[in-house]
């Protein structure tokens, strides 16, 4: 009889959930009254609509409000977390735009090493050559694209 044992707790939850709805509805009524006190018809319609949403679709409305606050109000914070928190972490595993930063940092470190007159190991030399070749290729591609664009504009 597990169901019977859990029944009082469910009853308590349902009752308090109803009380919470009453509280939320009271707050909303106050705001609606402040907004529509000059027009009784609009106030009445707004009360009916808000009561319908709060007492029939309370869970959906709550989820929608949470989504609004997460994505609209705190959207910029979320974007910063992704760009400066998540992407550098994923870049370590070669995912996302953070992977380029890792390579660039390594290249700059080795460049500094060369500038200080230290010798590079075989793997470090290999990395430098590969990275330089990649950079060259990228620059060539960019030049070609620019050329094509110019030709398109001219012709």
């Amino acid at each position, binding site marked *: 009889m597990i169901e019977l044992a859990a029944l009082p707790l469910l009853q*308590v939850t349902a*009752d*308090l959930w*109803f*009380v919470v709805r*009453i*509280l939320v509805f*009271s*707050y909303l*009524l*106050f705001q609606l*009254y402040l907004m529509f*006190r000059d027009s009784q018809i609009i106030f009445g319609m707004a009360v009916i609509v808000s009561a319908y949403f709060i007492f029939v679709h309370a869970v959906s409305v709550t989820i929608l409000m949470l989504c609004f606050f997460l994505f609209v109000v705190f959207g910029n914070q979320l974007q910063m977390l992704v760009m400066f928190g998540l992407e550098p972490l994923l870049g370590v595993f070669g995912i996302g735009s953070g992977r380029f930063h890792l390579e660039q940092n390594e290249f700059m470190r080795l460049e500094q090493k060369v500038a200080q007159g230290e010798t590079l190991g075989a793997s470090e030399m290999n990395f430098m050559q590969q990275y330089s070749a990649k950079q060259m290729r990228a620059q060539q591609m960019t030049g070609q694209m620019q050329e094509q664009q110019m030709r398109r504009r001219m012709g």
Partner: protein
Amino acid sequence: MLFLEELQWVWWIIIFLMAYYYYNWAQEHLAFSPVLTLVVAAILIYYLVIVYPWAGLLGWFVSIIMFSGLLFMGAVFAPFLFRARPK
């Protein structure tokens, strides 16, 4: 030992204050309609004072902590409580 009779009296006083607090809340928020005030106050007092007084007491304390401005005092005293120690 606890004096249970006195505790009973204290408990009745707390119950009365809670009921007055929830009635006052309804009156403040629904001042434009006396009937609605009575209905909401009756619902609140029935559930939060008569049926589940412990939930009402918890809600009372939580609402006082949240809405009285007590938490602003935390920011006032935090610099003295959590001071950066010199090395």
